[in-house]
Every structure is written in C-alpha cells, then in structure tokens.
C-alpha cells in the first residue's frame, strides 16, 4: 500500500489546530509511517501541487477563498475540515449577525476597507464538498490521528454521534448543573473526552451539535436553571450561529 500524500491548508483561523497536530511529536513520527505530508505551511517550506488528502483549517470568509478551495477540491480525493472554523464557522462566525461595514470600522479604524471579507464567515462545506470533519476548538489530536487512520484503512471516520454527557459520566464528573453552572454538553457532540467539564469548565459547544438534538428541552433546562432567553442564545451562538447550526 503506497502512503497517501497529505497536504494542510489554512483559511480564516488562528492556525491553532495545525499547531496542535505539530505538538503530537512522538505520534507524529508514527503517523508519518502511514502518510506522507507534502504541504504544511506551519512545518515545512516545500509545496506540492499533488496530494490525495487535503486537511483544511479555517472558515470560508472571502470571495477569493472560493477559487483556492475549488482548486484544492479538484486535486484532493478526500477533503477533511479541521477544527471548528472549517467545520462550523467557529469563532469567526460570531460576526455573522453584525453589519460588516460597522464591524470593519470598529476593528480597523484607520483603514476599514483595506481588507477583503465577506458578509459572513462560513464552514468550508458552504464552498466545497467535505468528506470528513474533525470538530473542536482546537481539535482533539487523538481524534485527528484516529480519523486519519480510519480513512487510510478505508473505514468511516468514526466520530461519536452521542453528546458530551456520555463522556462526562464515564469520567465520573459531578454534573456542572449541580454546581450551579449551565452547559451545552447534552446537545454537543462528544469525542473530546469531556475535557472542559472534567477540568472545571463547562461545555461551550465548540464541536457542534449532535445529530437530532432536542433543542427545545435543552432550552427549557437552561431556563429552569436560571438563564434567560438572551443568554441562552448567546451561549449557543458562540460556536453555532444560525447559519451553521445543525450542519
């Protein structure tokens, strides 16, 4: 079996997901036994026009992205969206509900029209067909390795479809609702091993919704535990604006 060629690309993002992958160190060397990395801006200066798997970090937020994304799609057999920005728009999509001109003036007061940006930051699936995604902000690197391995083996990527609550219970955490906090864990996709709730935080939804979430019940519960509607919407919108919810 010849090793598949893998190329990494970045769009609107902090590039932290790629950095997490570089942090794999020992496992990265093992990973290189099963794949060839032919392009990775954060790690190497070589570039390659030919690759089998494209791993894309970042959201689709400029018209000019479209051409580049289409080119990648034409070349790659498999496209993987890496991290929340590529998967669901991520933190970038927070701006989607605001007026672009106002926002540009606020962020770049001296030169608001120097930078190109679209009205909305969208997941890359809004531009091209995506074959697999690795959720999270940042991604869970163990999951990244597992998905790559599964794809190389010709298996389904194998992402959990159950919510964070499952992993939280397996870790024997006291439910954060019992501690007087509110959490999106019941409707958000697991796979992170409940890392936030296991270390004193709450789930803020960076991995996106599970398939078929019971949003009404989640809303009722957050309300019952004292959040008003506005704050519920705020907390859900952090990673999942209306444009991307459910994708």
């Amino acid at each position, binding site marked *: 079996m010849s090793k598949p060629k893998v190329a990494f690309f970045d769009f609107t993002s902090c590039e932290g997901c790629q950095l997490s992958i570089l942090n794999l160190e020992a496992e990265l060397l093992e990973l290189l036994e099963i794949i060839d990395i032919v392009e990775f801006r954060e790690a190497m200066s070589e570039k390659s026009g030919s690759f089998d798997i494209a791993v894309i970090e970042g959201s689709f937020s400029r018209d000019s992205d479209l051409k580049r994304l289409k080119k990648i799609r034409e070349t790659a057999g498999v496209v993987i969206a890496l991290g929340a920005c590529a998967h669901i728009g991520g933190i970038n999509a927070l701006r989607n509900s605001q007026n672009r001109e106002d926002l540009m003036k606020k962020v770049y007061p001296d030169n608001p029209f120097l930078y190109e940006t679209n009205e909305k930051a969208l997941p890359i699936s809004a531009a091209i067909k995506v074959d697999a995604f690795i959720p999270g902000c940042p991604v869970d690197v163990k999951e990244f390795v597992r998905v790559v391995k599964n794809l*190389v*083996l010709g298996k389904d990527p194998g992402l959990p479809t*159950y919510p964070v*609550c*499952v992993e939280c*219970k397996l870790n*024997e*955490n006291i439910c954060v609702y019992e501690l007087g906090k509110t959490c999106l864990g*019941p409707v958000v996709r697991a796979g992170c091993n409940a890392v936030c709730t296991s270390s004193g935080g709450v789930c803020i939804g960076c991995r996106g919704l599970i398939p078929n979430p019971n949003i009404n*019940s989640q809303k009722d519960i957050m309300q019952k535990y004292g959040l008003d509607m506005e704050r519920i919407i705020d907390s859900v919108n952090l990673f999942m604006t209306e444009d991307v919810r459910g994708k």
Partner: protein
Amino acid sequence: MLTEVMEKQSTKDNIMRGLKKAMAEYSIAALTKKDGKVLFDYIDDTDKIELEYTPTVLSPKKFFFPQEEVILEYTLEGRVNTKIDYTKTVLFGVRPCDITGIQILDEAFSESNGDPNYLTKRENSIIIGIDCNSICDENAFCYKVASQNPKGGFDIMLHNLGNDFAMSIVTAKGEQFADQYFEMGKVDSEALNTFRIEKMKVFEEAGGPFEDLEKLPEIFSENQFHPIWDTEAERCLSCGSCIMVCPTCYCFDVIDELALSMKIGDRLRRWDACMLRSFAEVSGGENFREEVKNRVKHRINRKFNFLMTKHGRSVCVGCGRCVRSCLADISPVTIVEALTATSKEMHLEEKNNDLYLPEKAYIRKIETFTENEKFFELELENGKSLGHQPGQFILLSIFGIGEAAISVSSPPSFGNRFDIVVRAVGDVTNKLHTLTTGDFVFIRGPFGHGFDNNILNKMKNKHILFIAGGIGYVPLRSLINLTLKKTNAYKKISILYGCKTPEDRMFKDELQYISTLGGNVELLETVDNGDDKWLKNTGVITTLIPMVDFNPEDTIAVICGPPIMYKFVIKTLADHGVTNNNIYVSLERRMKCGVGKCGHCQIDNIYVCQDGPVFRFSDIEDKEEAL
C-alpha cells in the same frame, strides 16, 4: 453460597486492620474522595475509606464491567489471543442497592454464554457490603423496588452497630477471607436485631414497595401506548446519562482499534446505551429505534418488563442515579406510577362491580369556618390512605339523601385521614352540617385529574401564583400546602386570596401562619368589603395581581374561585404577559357519577370529572362552555 448465613462481629478498627493486611494479596477498592468527589476507586491506604455513604456518579459495577476493556489482541497477519485483565480485588463498602445490581449482572453475564471477562473478575473478587439504615436522598427509591435486602451479589455484609460491625457471611469465599484477615467474636444478636428492626421501620415509613410491584411486567405490557411515553420523550435529551450511571445496564459496543503501526491491534468493548440514537442503527443508515419515545420505552421496559420477567425481580434497583443525572427530570418512579394507575383503572372498568360502591369513612374532627362552611377531617374505615393527587375530588354519600362531589383539601399523604371543607348549599351538604364527630359517611374516589407529577415537575423552580376566590381556596389548599412543604423547589410562591368580607375567609389560622413564613413565600389578601379591623387590601381579586413582582416567562398561575372570577383574572394575567399554557384552572361542574359516564359534567368532548377538574387553560381555551 453457605447453606446458612454465618453471623459474627468485629470492631471497626479490626476490620480496617484486616483490610490493610489483605493489601499484600489484594487490591482494595472502596468509597473514597478524589478531586472533590466521592467515588468507588482503588485505594492505597485504609485511611482513605469513607464509611459514610454519599451517592456516587457510577456504581461499582465498573470493577467487573469497566467502561472500556480489551477482549482480543491480534496482528494483521492473523494471530489472535483473548485478553482478560483482572486483579484480585476486595470491593469494600458497597451498599445494598448496588449489591442487588451486581447480583443481577452476575445472572446476566452467567446465563447461557458465560462471559469470561466479567466472570473472571468476579471470581477474583471479594465483595464486602455495608448495610444501610437510612435512605440516602430524595431521589433514591430502593424501597419501591425492594432492593434494600440483597440475598446474593456479596460475600460479607457489615451492619453498623456503632463501634462494631455485625457481619453476615454468606459465601465460602467470604468465610475463608474473614477467617484469614478479621479477628471476629460472637455476634450481639440483640443489637443486630435492633438494627434490622430499625432499618425495616425506616424503609416502611418511606412508603414501601410500588403498588403491584410483582405485576409490573404485565402492567408495562398492557401500557405500551400510554401517553406518558410521549410526555417523557418530549423532554428527553437522549444524552445517555441515565444508562451510563445505571448499575444494571450492561449493553456494550465492540470496536477494533489498530495501533498506528498498522500491524497490531485490540478489539475492545465499551459501554453503549440504548438511549443513544446510534444504538440500533445499522450500516446503510437504517435505524431500528429512531424515535426517542421508543428508546425511552425500551430502556424502562428492560428494567420493569423484559428483564424483570427473566430475573424474577425488578432490574431497576432504585439507586436513584438516573434520576439524579437527568436534567429533564425523567424518573422511572413517575412512569411506573402512571402506568400502574392506568392499569388499575383499566381493571376497575373490566370488573365494573366496585364502580359505584362507596366506602365508609368516619368524621374525626369538625370546625366551623363561617356561617355556611364547615371543615371536616375524615378517616377511611379500611385504614387505607385516600391516595389522591392535589386537585382531585371525592363523592361523598349520605344514604337516603344522596351523593355530592367535594374537593379534597389536604395534601397527598400516606396517612388514612384527609380534609374537606363543605358549604351547606344542597341536600347532602345540609345534612352533613348536622352530623357530629364520630358519625360516618360514605365516600368514593379520589376521582379526576389533579395536579399530577407531570404538572408538578413543570412547576419546579417556577414562580407559582395561586389565585383563589372565596371557597376556591379549599381545593387549592391541597397543592398550596404541598408546595409549602418544600418551598426551595420553587422560585417563589405567591398566594393571592380574595373574599367578600374578612369573615368569609377559609383556614384563617393557616393564613395567619403563612403570612409569617417569609422567604420566597408571600400571601396577599383582599376583601370586597372590609371592616374597621381589616388592614389589608380592599377591592376585587384582580387588584392584587399588579402587586406581585413576577416575570411572566417563568410564572405558573393556578386559579380557583367562583365562575365569574376566571375571565377577569385570566384577562389581567394576559395583560401582564402570562400565556394560557402557564395557567391552570380548577373547574366546578355538576357531577353525579364521577367516572365519566353520567354526562353531567361534559364540556364538548371532555368530561370534567375524568379529564379535569384541573386543566391547563390552553387545553380548553377554545371551548365556549369552559368558563
């Protein structure tokens, strides 16, 4: 199992010393504290054992059936080995509910195809239980499923006698272990007996087992289309928490994990959950249990129906973990009780012969409230509790005169007495006013649909706005007094009460008491015509509503009063933003049979005596006759 339970006794210090010694040969797992939480875990010193029980997130089943374990090791070249990981373990301090759970798992993993991974771990373990003599919290319901006195699933059970533990040794393995590690003396039979009697009392007082516990498989089978499956499924998040924490769930998923070398790998099993959407999904996307309702049904039926038949006992052990972990407040107790009640009704209708037969009740206490209204405390001759929900009513008979529908005014109770307040307005009520303490009447019921668990759950953490007019306080008092028993379950409780004159007020002493409660409880009163002594508000009941500080989004209003009152109150509430689905009304109608037959109380297609008298207003707002 030994043919006879061996009873011994030892001091607590002695037991601890014994466990310490056993550490040379065994790993010890016990209840312990770690990162601020209490859980069952391996310990390196007996000092770390917690003897007082706090409910844990996971049950100790994880020592025999871990969250994840390797069952096969293989190479891609085709070599394969079975893998069974185990350490010789003493599991110390398991409580009766979890022991019953282990007993059920022992049966499940032994039958037909003995599971090598589970059974090897069990064979290499000693289970030392600590008996309970109290109920751990309001969510536990071990007594309802009779799991507090396990007969198997352990080797030694300790009973707390203060400085000493009495010991019941039930297996040869336990006997051998105890002989080797514990210095034991003769049991103080009297003290052990006292412990057992006290324990029995505690669990009996908590309410005892589910009515018809043994018949639950039958009851569940005939209620597969009960509406409660819809109402519970509507709230269910399908998050799987209930299954993860269950001491008797044992479904698992099997996963191949190849090492990155792509040469060797493991086949592992991991806890799975039938509440998760993917549980019954096959490749190609077909899902054989797609609907949440079917998953809820399946989970609960496994405990009280399918597997109950197989194991000969409820497979739910009542530990309460699923109730504690459910953010949507779904509880097996609510479901079991609803289905049991429906089955009872179904069977009652089949039988038919008790339908119109009243039971004798004695008048135990009478108080005159006003010129026309008297309070009666009644006691059923058969010694049973009335078993009513707040808002339900009875039919009271005086032979020779007739029968009249009367609301029950006391909160639900296990006792056999209950309260009514009756205005002398008709034949039966006029006659009742002439009776004295010790006289008897006959009653049927309770009837109708009151404030059931579903409504009570909706009220949790909400601001409850009671609005009562005149004698309308009487039916509401059942719910008012129930909520006052646990005020911290509600955001706020506001009681608005209006009468014609100060003299017309019901339960004057209780009102006085409620007005002193403070905290999140407030009582606002008004009368149409005050006198010199009346210092509170004067005016109609609606004038009280603006005086309450409430957020319509989390307020539930409950109304009962004279017919004229409802329209005005509901309009004022609407002006303040309260929607009809957050308003409950208790309606009065002429009633004769109480069992949905005679037709007197009918409004369109509903019978007030069966579907009401308590209604969510949004359910009847389009009915012209309702108000």
